[in-house]
């Protein structure tokens, strides 16, 4: 199973963590779609330790046991 972790207001109506079934050729774009997640609301994607902005991660391949994090724009210090 693919595990997807969501943070801050991306949790609204989705929860903290969602498990998805893997399908051949799946990418980050497909995962976001399955979660009804608009990537414009996402600031950072981390997939199996690789982190980047959504526009550079949309076609990133997902593995059957991938751990994916979606973060909205957040900051602090």
């Amino acid at each position, binding site marked *: 199973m693919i595990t997807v*972790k969501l*943070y*801050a*207001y991306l*949790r609204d109506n989705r929860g*903290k963590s969602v498990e998805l079934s893997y399908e051949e050729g799946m990418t980050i774009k497909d995962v976001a779609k399955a979660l009804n997640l608009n990537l414009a609301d996402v*600031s*950072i994607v*981390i997939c199996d*330790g690789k*982190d*980047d*902005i959504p526009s*550079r991660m949309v076609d990133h391949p997902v593995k059957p046991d991938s751990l994916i*994090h979606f*973060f*909205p*724009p*957040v*900051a*602090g*210090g």
Partner: protein
Amino acid sequence: MYGYMGKILRVNLTKRTIKVDDLDFDLAKKYVGGRGLGTKLLFDEIDPKIDPLSPDNKIIFMNGPMSGTPTPTGGRYMVITKSPLSGTIASSNSGGTWGARLKYAGYDGIIVEGKSEAPVYLEINEEDVEIKDASHVWGKLVHETTDILQKDKNTNVLTIGPGGEKLSRMAAVMNEKDRAAGRSGVGAVMGSKNLKAIVVRGKMKVNLFDEEKTRANNKEATNKLKDNPVTGQGLPTYGTAVLVNVINANGILPTNNFQGGVFDAADDISGETLAEKYLVRKDPCHRCPIACGRYTKTKKVEGGGPEYETIWAFGSDCGVKDLEAIIEANHWCNQYGIDTITAGATLAAAMELKEKGYLEDVDFEGQPLDFGNAEAMVYWLHKMGKREGFGDKMADGSLVLCKSYGREDLSMTVKGLEIPAYDPRGVQGHGLTYATSNRGGCHVRGYMISPEILGLPDKLDRMELQDKPLWVKIFQDLTAFIDSSGLCLFTSFALGADDYANIYNAVVGTEWTGDDVLKAGERIYNIERQFNLAAGFTASDDTLPERLLKVPMPEGPTKGHVHQLDKLLPEYYQLRGWNEMGIPTQERLVELGLE
């Protein structure tokens, strides 16, 4: 004179004299104010080699030109002195309202000299300034002291707690109870002078060069801050602790005194959990539309905070997953007036010393300081605040503690100041800022987490080395300007150098560009460097703890990496116009007007 009040109060506690100096407007513009102007004045007036807790040290409370103006976040001030924790220049920033109130009382800053024979406090009511007996508040906690000295809604109280009185080198200067000029031990310098508090009352206004343009700038800046998803949504909703999860997901949330970078219970101590379970209301600083400040309540305590760094220090760094205990620790740090970062990091260092068998002779009074023991953590925090038992040994920070057991390497410090909540093994640029920060291990002298982790303004590869020295230099220079202006660093998530130039021009009457802003910041950075060099620091101090340079991260997305400082530092020196010894070249000093 616009933006500035034109007056600096000079108080000599040895001679019990009070006088008012005229502000040199040209000097003020050259060093902007706050951090820059305060450092220039301190450097001109003290020998950087002095003992920081001797009467020879001075402590300067300095506003920026935007403090007290209607500019969004315009209320921050700086405390500048020689640090008793690190021996470097100390400039510690605080929000709240006290800084703005000092402008409303008619002063850009206060220079405190000498040492009083007995505890005193300073009461400022515009032109009436008195040195008063503080025996009735000496020994009292910060909240009670504030309540006793607070007279009315036009009064603001800055005070130290028992930490500063007892010369703890991690002591903070507190204002409005829970706002802290937290880092570098500035509260101990007040304590060494027997100065308990500064109470300020005033209702004057700051003159603006172009009121109409300032109004337009303020509207534009406010809109940018509100429209920006970080300053308009993320920070107001969750506070700075919203960072816990993203830092952990990158494997750089320092855990058990930087022995690891992944904390399994990160979500339990996150900003999301804080908002869900303990947040009472937002607690904004003066004129701040962001309102990242938290007011929280548990069964035991209530008050301001905790911030992200505090949650990390008492949380994952101590292996503690109990958010209520972390909130409690934050509360007592504020009450004793000690820095949450150094306090938590010192407890974490003690836990590692115990883990490695160095503390077998210590009487832990039934509260063993083991990683993950929340009750013992809070117990020993109290002891640290009161300087009792083993707490007395911890009260001067992790470096003093670890050195006393011959394990200096277990102190996660740069130049004696504890590194905050991001493991540099997984953020190469940010590690360079730690190594080169003029006050030691500090995250807010060039917040490279912004581009390397958060993608602001652009997303950089966090492990990449190329171009990082240039990014670091620009971030450090811009930050030096912001810290000197009286604005909050968080505005930089939404505003850029050109925005700051426009704001400064309308308030002060200059015709600066964004490049002038950066150049002023570079000048400030270099005068701080010169102070440290004169104090005896060398290029060998621009380093990181050995663990972060030599021991690969053992787990998580950063597994296998160390910080590659040796590959970044030479280019950084070159960009700064410093020679290989880290000393500014004459050519660069002339260029910056520092010859």
